[in-house]
């Protein structure tokens, strides 16, 4: 099943990493010939001051800025439509996203809708973006989604209460300014949720049946850093050195999952998030353990490697599923996260609908163990 040296592609944006890298946004906007920037953010980031700082930086370079902050935590098709309309009305020529996964995914979808002159629902699936969007710069403010380096954009179809993915190499942003400083304002619960999202990226890409040598390296390194530093960043939010490590871990996980894709955790989390409008990180946290249990027998040695990475060692002695489960629970406990979907408000009768949407999600095609509707339904039950 696992090929030692498969032929694989690796796509990444131009990455500028380090404290203060956000101040280069004006310079990069100019490099990309932006004269009229469409700045996508959300009200929280605006309050934290990061969007304003980026706007000032752009205006210092005599670049006109149109601010769009009508983005919900799970960005909706109507917000994408509104954004693309405003982009065109203002004749913008460059996208800058400042925020977590929501503004970044929304901005990516806006760009694709603008150039493809279609409804965002028409872009659902893999390689459905026929014309690349306008140039795009991301300044991520969470250490988790890694939408700034990935080929994914996840949008909520609010009418059907589901999420769908736009997956295309054209969705990879042009420039990512990864600046750990901007994660200092994240409240602890958001730090925990986004951090667990990053860990899920690392886990799922490492066991993905599309993984490669390069993605493996990033996935393991990400796992190591997140497992070690996420609890510390959670405990001491103002400590930049922990933030830096978690941010780096998140970026590694992003590069891994963008190229190796994900698995069942994300298919189920998308379904859940679309239905209940809960935070993506929280959904992941509740599903990771049950999916690991489902997949474990298919790729036990891979999970052993992940567990070893979590412990910071490189020994790959198989310790078994239970050891890994308890290691994961230990981590979520340290982040004060409660397992159990029922606490999120999921009821038995919701499971068929959740199952159908999760089954139709493209993420689990790379899950190491093929999952069918009955498997997914059973896993939802287990996670209640």
């Amino acid at each position, binding site marked *: 099943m696992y090929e030692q040296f498969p032929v694989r592609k690796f796509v990444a944006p131009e990455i500028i990493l380090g404290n203060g890298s956000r101040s280069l946004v004006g310079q990069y906007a100019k490099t990309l010939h932006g004269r009229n920037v469409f700045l996508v953010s959300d009200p929280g980031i605006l309050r934290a001051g990061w969007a304003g700082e980026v706007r000032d930086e752009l205006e210092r370079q005599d670049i006109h800025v149109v601010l769009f902050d009508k983005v919900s935590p799970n960005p909706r098709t109507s917000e994408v439509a509104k954004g693309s309309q405003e982009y065109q009305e203002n004749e913008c020529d460059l996208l800058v996203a400042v925020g977590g996964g929501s503004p970044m995914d929304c901005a990516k979808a806006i760009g694709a809708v603008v150039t493809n002159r279609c409804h965002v629902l028409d872009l659902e699936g893999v390689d459905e973006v026929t014309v690349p969007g306008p140039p795009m710069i991301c300044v991520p403010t969470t250490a988790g989604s890694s939408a700034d380096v990935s080929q994914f954009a996840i949008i909520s179809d609010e009418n059907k209460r589901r999420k769908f993915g736009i997956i295309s190499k054209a969705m990879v942003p042009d420039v990512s300014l990864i600046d750990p400083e901007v994660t200092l304002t994240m409240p602890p619960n958001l730090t925990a949720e986004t951090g667990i999202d990053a860990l899920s990226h690392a886990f799922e890409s490492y066991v993905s049946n599309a993984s490669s040598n390069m993605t493996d390296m990033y996935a393991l390194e990400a796992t190591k850093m997140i497992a070690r530093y996420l609890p510390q960043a959670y405990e001491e939010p103002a400590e930049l050195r922990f933030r830096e490590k978690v941010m780096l871990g998140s970026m590694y996980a992003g590069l891994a999952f963008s190229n190796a894709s994900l698995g069942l955790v994300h298919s189920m989390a998308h379904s859940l998030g679309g239905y209940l409008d809960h935070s993506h990180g929280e959904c992941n946290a509740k599903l990771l353990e049950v999916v690991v249990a489902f997949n474990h027998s298919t790729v036990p040695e891979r999970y052993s490697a992940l567990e070893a990475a979590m412990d910071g060692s490189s020994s790959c002695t198989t310790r078994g599923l239970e050891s890994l489960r308890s290691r994961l629970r230990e981590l979520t406990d340290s982040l004060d996260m409660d397992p159990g979907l029922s606490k999120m408000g999921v009821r038995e009768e919701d499971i068929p609908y959740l199952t159908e949407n999760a089954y139709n999600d*493209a993420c689990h*095609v790379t899950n190491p163990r093929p999952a069918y509707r009955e498997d997914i339904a059973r896993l939802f039950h287990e996670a209640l």
Partner: protein
Amino acid sequence: MRRSEEEIRAEALRQKIIGLGETSHRKSYYPQLQEQIDELHATLKALQDSENKYRTLIENVNVGIFRSDIKDKGRLVQANPAMCRILGYEDERAILEADPDEFYQDPQDRRAIIDELKKEGRIKDKKVRMRPRSGGTIIVSMTMTALYDEMGDISFIDGVIEDITEKEMKEEALRQANKKWNLLSSITRHDINNQAMVLDGYLTLAMERTTDAEVRKLLSKARSSVQSIERHVAFAKDYQDIGINAPRWFDLRESLINALIPLDKASLSVRLEVDDYTIFADPMIGKVFYNLAQNVVRHSKGSVLEISTKEEDGSLVLSFQDNGVGIRDKSRLFMRSNSTSGFGLFLSKEILSITGVDIRETGEAGKGARFEIIFAEGQYRSPAASQGLPKQ
């Protein structure tokens, strides 16, 4: 079976995510983008071809085409090769550097033209005397249109000039030849009339002196011949004036009223029911109207003449309806032999035909004569369109 189909679908999706297939492209290379660029190239090429087409046309025509910048003392900003040739400049660069006053024989003409353009916005077929760089005088026909800026001021003038010097010279020669011919013809007519009058006098005297009935009869025939000669001479006088002066636009009602002034109003009452039309005709058109009215008294023996207008199938019909006996034999109407016997219709038809206007007789014998003059489209202007025309 169902599962295996789903497995195939999942595997296809997985391959797409791995992205080694043809549908996976980065921003830097996209076939669709290339298509758009190719389309743009094709459009630019078509635009270039179209521009070349018009450029060749403008460069090859025999009329001068130019644009002048009124805000830069009227200096030319564009001129085609014909423009340079007409004004004697070697190329466009040379003519663009020239002071536009130098183009005119009388620089006052230029100011007058600009004043007129400011007022009218457009000038058509204006004859201007210009001075080519090599010296001498040329006559050009000039048509110009003013272009305005956002403030509504004239910014540029686009114009076309045609060298009509040769044409003008030929026309002048023709005018001179005509003038000589008219002079000769008028002197000759005068002399013939004098001699005819003398001859008529002698014939009258001879008739008085003889009692021989046979001789008197012969003398009477000779007098008739003399009178016929006088009529021929009179016809020749009228005929020579046709087409001498250029046709122009006339106010129809005014022309009719002026033409009918010499009529004996005691024997003929005229009812005029014509709308405000203007007509394009030879300046002798009044003669036609007079003749038609005169015929009512002389030949149709009517006492009332009704003149009216009516538009029919895009034409204007001007009718002369009388209440006389009408015309029984229409076969020889408008023929030359008839004109000498007094109808004058041949002459009328000739005058009208200069501007292509038609005439016909549609009356019913016994119920009066009805002459209809038909002005086709372009030969008349309706009341609405005539408004604002300068009085002719």
